[in-house]
């Protein structure tokens, strides 16, 4: 059961990290503009990548389940999703390099 929890964490970590980073960044554009707090975006960025890394770790470690084919499927899924969403989080950071929150 512990492995299954790990595998599920691996699957959901990436998408949840992306959703969190995305929604928080959008919701806080005004706040960041008013308070000149663009560093907040970098914190979200780091946090998002950290969660994705956690997803990769859990998916990797949890691959030793009682049902190898299903466990392998979930593990691969977790790895792919965590890595893909990590890339998406990086892509989401690109606009911050060129645009200011108050523009």
């Amino acid at each position, binding site marked *: 059961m512990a492995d299954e929890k790990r595998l599920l964490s691996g699957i959901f970590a990436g998408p949840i990290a992306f959703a969190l980073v995305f929604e928080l960044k959008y919701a806080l*554009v005004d706040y960041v503009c008013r308070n000149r707090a663009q560093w907040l975006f970098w914190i979200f960025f780091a946090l998002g990548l950290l969660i994705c890394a956690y997803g990769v770790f859990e998916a990797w470690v949890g691959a030793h389940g009682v049902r190898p084919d299903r466990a392998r499927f979930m593990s691969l899924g977790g790895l*792919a*999703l965590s890595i*893909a969403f990590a890339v998406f989080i990086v892509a989401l950071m690109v606009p911050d390099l060129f645009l200011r929150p108050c523009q």
Partner: protein
Amino acid sequence: MTELSIEQPDFRRERAMLETTWAKRPGLLGWLSETGHKPIGMRYIVTAFVFFGLGGLEAALMRLQLSRPDNHFLNPDLYNQIFTIHGTTMMFLFAVPMMLGMGIYLVPLMVGTRNVPFPKLNAYGYFVYVVGGIFLYAMFFLGAGPDAGWFSYVPLSGPAFDPGKRADTWAQMITFTEFSALIVAVEIVVCVFKQRAPGMSLNRIPLFVWSMVMVSFMIMFAMPAVMLDSTYLIFDRTFSMHFFNRPEGGDPIFWQHMFWFFGHPEVYIIFIPGLGFMSSIIAAFAQRKIFGYTAIVCTLVTTAFMGFSVWVHHMFATGIPQLGSSFFTAASLMITVPTGVQVFCWIATIWTGRLRIATPMLYAFGFFITFIVGGLTGVQLGSVPIDWQVHDTFFVVAHLHYVLIGGAVFPLFGAFHFWFPKWTGRMYGEGLGQLSFWLLLVGFNVTFFPMHILGLHGMPRRVYTYGAETGWGRLNALASMGAVLIALSILTMLINFVMHRRRGAAAGPNPWNADTLEWSVPSPPPVYNFLHLPTVAGPNAVWDAAPDQPYVTGMRFDKREVLVTKTLDAEPDHKHELPGHSLAPFLLAVTSTVGLIGSIFYGWWFTVGMIVSAAVLVYWFWPKRGEGARRAPPRRAMTQRVLDVSALEEETADSRSLLWWGNLGMMAIEGAIFAMLIATYLYLRMVNLDWPPATVPKPDLVWPSINLGILLLTFIPALILDRAALHDNVPLCRLALAALIVAGAAFLIIQSFVLSNLGYKWSDHAYGSIVWTSIGYHMLHVVAAAGETALLFIYALVRPIVKKQLLDFRCTAVYWYFVIAMWLPFYFIVFIEPWLTRKGY
């Protein structure tokens, strides 16, 4: 595979028993009380197709109107109504219900079970959908058709610019259709996670089923947004609330946020099932396993998540800050990646398979061509500068039709041809099938491609005519000619199906040698689906089955029994008896219709509808006599390996049960609505510097806090009920139920007092609107919880309690936990937050 032995004489008795147990009732009453997934699914498909025809007729009228400049075939008012109803019909009455209907029909067959987990609820979902559609068209023919576009933007649809009942009709139709979609979503999620055939672990679920699971989750979190949004609109219009009224603290842009938070995922809700159809068709016609199964599942998950991250690209022209917009540009570009991965997986499958060409496969190719064009223009529209240039022009019309027709209708028509032999037992005419495809492909491109150019030339959407000097006449005439070809294509398809429905060549169980379980049963499938529930040995159930693949024995044939399996590996867990035919869903649809439609004229009709619906719900849930009766089990076939489940328990009262999962699904939806209410509060707070408004008095803390205490205390009887039901302690259950009723009633009385002493009304300002709506919505939940508890209490007094009722007790307890938890954030924002943030108190 498992059905090889279906013709063996040993099984005649079992088959006869199953046919009796699952038999349809004759006549109108039988039709109204039907709860089987196949008839209900087929009703969705046929009804949605009828609406598609109506929507197509409206499109034809529009094309006729626009076919030449300065045309006055339709007047502006009628044109407004027609384009609104066309969009509304195609999105809410055709596309979503059609895809869900396909899911309701196919998913139980594909996962190897006999019916959906909540058959009565499923029937109710169909009836409310039909009522919503009839209501829309009835109002249109009465001259009150909505006319503010399919997204009904405020303030155009608000009370100031749209008097009368036109916008209310649109808003309430949304309630009906979305309610239906939410029901189907819960049905599919529970069916897939709890009713799969033994052996169908997560990595063996067919890709179409995966696509329906993802769509169902999207529905559960997207549809509440538009339901709440349309309810706000009704409140603004009927009760003079101010959600979208800027001078009183509301915000019209908020409508767009809520609408598109639903509206963009809606696009994926429509086309993800199309991706599922594609996977089914391509695997069958390439005669090989889909290349990259895991990758496709991952891309479905990715698309489902990212579908919620692109809604603002519909609002670039509203003045969103550049950085905020750029996040959505990034997301809009990135969402093409998972779809691209799927396309490459299909190409690899075709490349490495043994491809046969027939009509379904042609439609799959049609998907590739049209959807890729739509995807490319989507990437363009995701970019702010291009979006600003072509916003609200025919370029957008072209794009959305390429995406929706290319992404959904082409695969859907392919799916019609693919599963036609399964539905009817007959083959369609291949010649007519191919003719209809080519007519559609050519007609579609002739109609919609010129619209790109028209849009780039500046022709705006939603204009009823244009001047000759614009030079748009020729391309519009061309587009109108293309529409004729589309109509011919659909007519050809219909003629093909009608002609071959009874007289086509016999199809046999699996004419395509396809891989999923529905192809292992006769065509059309028997009313009970599988004589013996199958077991699964691989991701392509039919192809991977051993010659002596075991089937499930030990299931009752004299009851509507389904096998409940474990979530991850689909190991047999327990058996569950489904309800049979019932008129209750139809009656509830009638009473809820009275309440919902009446409420747009007079608010008190809602209360009337609720009271009458409560009476019907008592009839719905009251256990029928004869339930739980036992007859001798049937003989077991000895000719083949079997998976015997006769020793499994017949019901459980814990978290493994279907009802538990259904309950969780419904709470997830309600939780999403609560979350959106909180989001509404926070949004309004953010756009108003004066919040709460200066006229709002200090919130009284005494009675609300006492009431919070009462609600928190209900946790104790809820917990006792939960534990007592788990340990079969009926007297203690009765006591806990009584305590919950008393606590619930006390809470409601005090809450009414608190509400009447707030010192402001819902119609005073947006703050009042959101506070009254939030408290009212929570009170409705307490009423529902208390009502359910009272019903169970009465039942527990007069009838013997069996395991099924114990499960009801536990679900009620969990619902009370939910009701308690949902009040905490509202208590904080309504009563505490003003003290913390408002100066001058």
